[in-house]
Structures are given as C-alpha cells and as structure tokens.
C-alpha cells in the first residue's frame, strides 16, 4: 500500500517505472497538474483517482473529494479550473441510492468550485473486487499569462506560508475508519482552493510554487519542493497550525501531523518582498483565514527539509516512506 501513500515509494514508482515507460516532456514536470501549451493557449491538465474508505466521512464524501482534489491540483498550477471528467468504477451490489448521494455531492461541489463535469464513464466490477465506489476525475483549466508556478522557481530567502490548520482531513477519515472509531470534533477540510489562489495571484502573479498537501501531508509537499528546487527548507514547529483535536488524535495513534493528509489547504513559496501582501490576501479569503508563515528557504542543506523544534533543537523532516502506521504503545 506504500506505493500509493504519497511518499518515497510513490515517487519511486513514478520515477523508475512510469516515467521511463511514458517519457514525454509534459510528464517530466511531475507537478500535481501538467502545464501545457495547446494552440497558443496555456492549459493545466490533471487527473486523480479516489479510493477513500469509508465513502462518507465527517465533512464530506468521496464525491466532494473527487471534485475538489482535481480542482485543487489544477489550482496549484495557477489555473482557473474549468472542466472535469468523471469516471465511476462501481462494485456489483452497491446501492444506487449511495451512488446517487455521491453523484449529487459531486454536482454540488462542482458548482461551488465553478467547474462543469463535461464527460464521464461508468464501469461495474464483480462483487468483492472494489470498495463500493471508486472515482477518477480529470480536469482542465486555463493558466493566466504571467503565471509560472513550479519548484524550480524557488530561491533561498523565499517565505513558506500554509493557508490554515493542518491534518483535519486525515484525522476525520481515521476517526470513522472501521475498527478505529474515536470521538473527535474534527471535520474534513475538503474545499476548492481555486478562489483562494486567484486572490493570491491578484496581489502578485510572481508566486514561486503552490502545493496542496494531500497524501503524505505537509511533509511530503515540502520535501517535493525542496528536492525540485535544490534549496533547503526550514520550518518552525511552533508556528505550524495544528488544531488541538488533530494533535491529540495523532498523539494517541503515534502519528506526526506533518504527514497527515489535508484536502483544503495549500502551501505557498513566495518571494520575501511579496510575502506580507500575499498573507493579507489569503487571510481576507474564507479559506485562508488561518494563513501563517511557517518557515523559509535557505542555501544550507539543499533538497532537505529541517524543522526547528519548540525547544530549540533541529531535526530532519523526511519524505514519508509509505503510509504512516499506528504505533503499538
């Protein structure tokens, strides 16, 4: 399962198996969305598959996730998301009322995100060969002129901003997962980030890179950017917004909030001279009220993320290998 966990094993699968097989220049960008030029138009193109269990969780369902996840992947390239495709893989025996709930949620999420589901497909697999419903969405959007978001643009001295509390989605899912149900007042942060990104770009198109830290959490996104830019990233643990319920749940399970998934947050690497204005713009948006500067990029330890601990020590924040495993004691 580690190969799908968004960590080192996932990256390895892409780099050593898929890249050699497909090997085109567009894929080599390795972003959440590919930035393409087609007939003189700059497009962002992205796809993602959703295999979440349970299908319905506090704050959303697989349908919201399938829309917002792909919308956010497009938004992280600076694009205005426009159209989605939707592929359903249904397990024989799943109630149509459940499919209907998911489809309605997708429709509502698409309208809220300002995108249209323009094409789709449905397949049914035999009972026992799926978890009820799998969804794949692909999406396209337009990238405005003057916007160029990629890790290679990051330079030492950039400011690292996170848009709000981390770990909500992962903890919400865990709290209702079979065998682990625990009472926690946490809902998924599942939300479309296109509007937040546009309000940031309105301040300055010169953002360096954006990521939505989903699988693998904030740690995975920061490591991707450090590796892609060749700069060192320093984060300050005391500044990272971890809500109490997330901290408590992680403490009980022996997990690190930095590695827990988010579905409505972004991390931005911004030139120092624009950082205050971008932060103000984020905080003025409903999905960026909790925006916080958590660190900066440095020339030291290129490609590596280092945390300054609350007590004044330092530690490496590594790319997770696969999925985090709950501890024994």
């Amino acid at each position: 399962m580690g190969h799908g966990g968004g960590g080192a094993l996932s990256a390895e699968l892409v780099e050593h198996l898929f890249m050699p097989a497909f090997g085109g220049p567009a894929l080599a960008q390795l972003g959440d969305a590919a930035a393409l030029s087609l007939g003189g138009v700059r497009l962002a193109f992205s796809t993602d598959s959703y295999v979440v269990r349970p299908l319905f969780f506090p704050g959303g369902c697989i349908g919201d996730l399938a829309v917002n996840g792909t919308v956010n992947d497009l938004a992280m390239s600076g694009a205005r998301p426009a159209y989605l495709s939707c592929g359903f893989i249904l397990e024989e025996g799943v109630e149509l009322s459940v499919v209907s709930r998911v489809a309605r949620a997708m429709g509502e999420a698409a309208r809220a995100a300002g995108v249209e589901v323009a094409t789709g497909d449905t397949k049914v697999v035999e009972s026992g060969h799926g978890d009820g419903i799998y969804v794949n969405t692909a999406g396209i959007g337009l990238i405005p002129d003057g916007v160029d978001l990629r890790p290679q643009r990051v330079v030492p001295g950039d400011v690292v901003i996170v848009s709000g509390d981390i770990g909500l989605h992962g903890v919400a899912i865990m709290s209702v997962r079979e065998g682990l149900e625990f009472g926690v007042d946490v809902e998924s942060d599942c939300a479309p980030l296109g509007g937040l990104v546009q309000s940031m770009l309105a301040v300055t198109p010169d953002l360096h890179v954006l990521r939505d830290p989903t699988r693998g959490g904030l740690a995975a996104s920061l490591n991707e950017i450090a590796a892609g830019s060749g700069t060192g990233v320093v984060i300050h643990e005391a500044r990272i917004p971890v809500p109490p319920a997330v901290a408590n749940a992680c403490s009980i399970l022996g997990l690190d909030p930095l590695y827990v998934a988010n579905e409505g947050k972004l991390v931005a690497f911004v030139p120092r001279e624009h950082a205050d204005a971008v932060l103000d713009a984020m905080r003025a948006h409903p999905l960026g009220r909790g925006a916080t500067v958590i660190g900066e990029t440095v020339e030291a330890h290129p490609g590596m993320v280092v945390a300054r601990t609350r007590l004044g020590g330092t530690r490496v924040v590594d790319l997770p290998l696969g999925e985090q495993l709950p501890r024994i004691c």
Partner: protein
Amino acid sequence: MKYIDEFQDPALARRLLDEIHATVTRPWALMEVCGGQTHTIIRHGIDQLLPDQVELIHGPGCPVCVTPLEVIDKALEIASRPGVIFCSFGDMLRVPGTGRDLFRVRSEGGDVRVVYSPLDALTIARQNPDREVVFFGIGFETTAPPNAMTVHQAKKLGIRNFSLLVSHVRVPPAIEAIMLSPSCRVQGFLAAGHVCSVMGVAEYPELAARHRVPIVVTGFEPLDILEGVRRTVRQLERGEHTVENAYARAVRPEGNPAALAMLADVFEVTDRAWRGIGVIPGSGWRLADRYREFDAEHRFQVTGITTQEPAECRSGEVLQGLLKPNECAAFGTVCTPRTPLGATMVSSEGACAAYYLYRRLDLQAAPAAPTTPLEASPVG
C-alpha cells in the same frame, strides 16, 4: 492545549535545562529505557540541548525491535495459512522476518489486518466463526494487560477460533541484564513511565540498590524527559541511587491492580529471547497452562521454527546501549527504513529509525535509492 502543550513549553524547558547545566560537574551516562522516549529525545532535539557531559544511551524498550526474528517468522508462517485472519498492530507489518514481512504476506493473498486493540481481533473472530483469527501479542508490560484481558474474554465467551501469538517481555530483567554486562556504561536509568503505570515501582528499589544506580520513572513528553534527566543527574551528583517517580500524573507506586490481576491470571513468567540480545532469564510472559488452548504457536504447530539473526545487523548492541546507531557500518547505507537489516531501523520507536529520520543532517547519511529493480517486487 490540555496535556500536550503544557509538556512542550519552551520556557519551562529552558528552566529545566538551565538547572541541569548548573548541576552537572562531570560526565554521566544515562539510559532512557523506552523507545518512545528515544524518539521524543531525537525528534525534539533534546540531546542537542543537554550539557556535553550528559550522554543519553538508548535502551531496549522498543517492543517491535526486541521481538525475535523467529517470532516474526512464526507470524509470517501463520499469516500465510489459508483460512487465517492475522491481526496485528500496524507497527509490526513492516518489520523484516526472513526474506519478507507481513505486508508482503498480505500482497501474496494472506488476510493480514491492522487493528488498534486486541479486542478488535476478538470481534473479528466472533464475526468470522469459520476462520481462525490470530492476534500478534507483542510488547512490554504496557500491551500485555489488554492482551491478557482479550484471552480471558475469549475463554469466558467460549470463542474457540481466536488465539494469541505471544512474545511479551518485561523491563526489569532487561535492566538487570544490561547492568550485568561487562561493557555496561550506564550510570542511571530513566524508567519507562507507561510500563510503571501498569506495574508500579515495586521491582525497582532492589535493582537500584544492588547496582547502585538511580532509577527515575519518566514520562514521554519533552518536559517529562528533561525532568527525568534533571532528577537522575541530581542523584548522581549527590552520590545517591534511589527510585524516584517523575511521572506521578500517570504512575502510582502500586501500579494498576486490575491489570496486575489480569496478568497474573492469564500469563506466567518465562525466559524470553530478545532480538539481537539473546535469552534473558525470566524476562517474558507466556500463556499460563489453563489458557494454553489460545496459544497460536501450539495451535498452528510452529514451535519448531528457529531462525538465526543476520550477522551484519548490530541492533543488539544498539538495544543494549553499546553502540550508537550511526556507529554501525551499515547505518544509512545498506540499512535504511526502505531496506532494514533489523527492526530498530523500521520501528517507529527504533533508535536507528530515529537517527535516520531526524538526524541525517548531522550524520551525513544520504537517503538510499532502491537497490533492486522496481519490477522485481509487487505493488505494496
């Protein structure tokens, strides 16, 4: 935040550190017994902030790390059998046995499930009366009582398709073994608070007196660790060697009587092998005779499986505090979390994993690329 932030307060930490710095006059070597404490120390950089004279030696208290290779191999064998549902805490799935781990067994079709409590495994047994459900009962005095209670419940409810693969270990005999080692450098112990919350502290005064070492019962948050260090150093500087409880919010001197009664009913003390260390007399628990029917080793007839530890893994020395993880030639090169030679590199409480994950900056160990072609392994 209640009960977490309070124990990570930088200002309070500074005061404790100042006091430790002011107290120390000569070098001391302290051992933190528990792997959870090791991870707190490394993750928060506590060892970087202590005076140079205070050396923290990492102890054997990682339940995953000390589970012998042959027990892992028995688990792999049982989990591979048709009709078995093998339940385990998540930590154990990535621990290497001989040539594979439980993740690999699962990818090969074995029904291996992560549970969060042994009682979940019992529920699975009740829901699947035509399947054999086995729970991997490993760990120290902390995890033994719920496992004991689960077996007790299974017997009481007449659930016959449930069994326990037991490899429980006890801390005090391990401290004894460490102190008896000719190469022992440990001068004081931070005892594992969670173990003492179950067992109390009755076993420690005699150990402290006989070996003339202070033993301070210590918790797991950064301030807990610093307070444990402060008290241990204070005793050493004064030439004292008593047992102190620096984790009074969780530990009563008498421990948890209900848990102790359950342990006494279901388990009996036995000699137990520790991975990388060998057999320590009286250091483990096995199911008592009256519960023998729930012993997975006997039920699945895997008692004959014996395994040699790989010679190149020096985790035994790491677990005894004789070797720092980065002093091992394989550290960060042949041995990484991706290609672990031993459990200390894969467990979330293993000292080698803590050094690899959090200290590569100082140790200059680069993350290793995969050593085998990707196509040689299944999707996992």
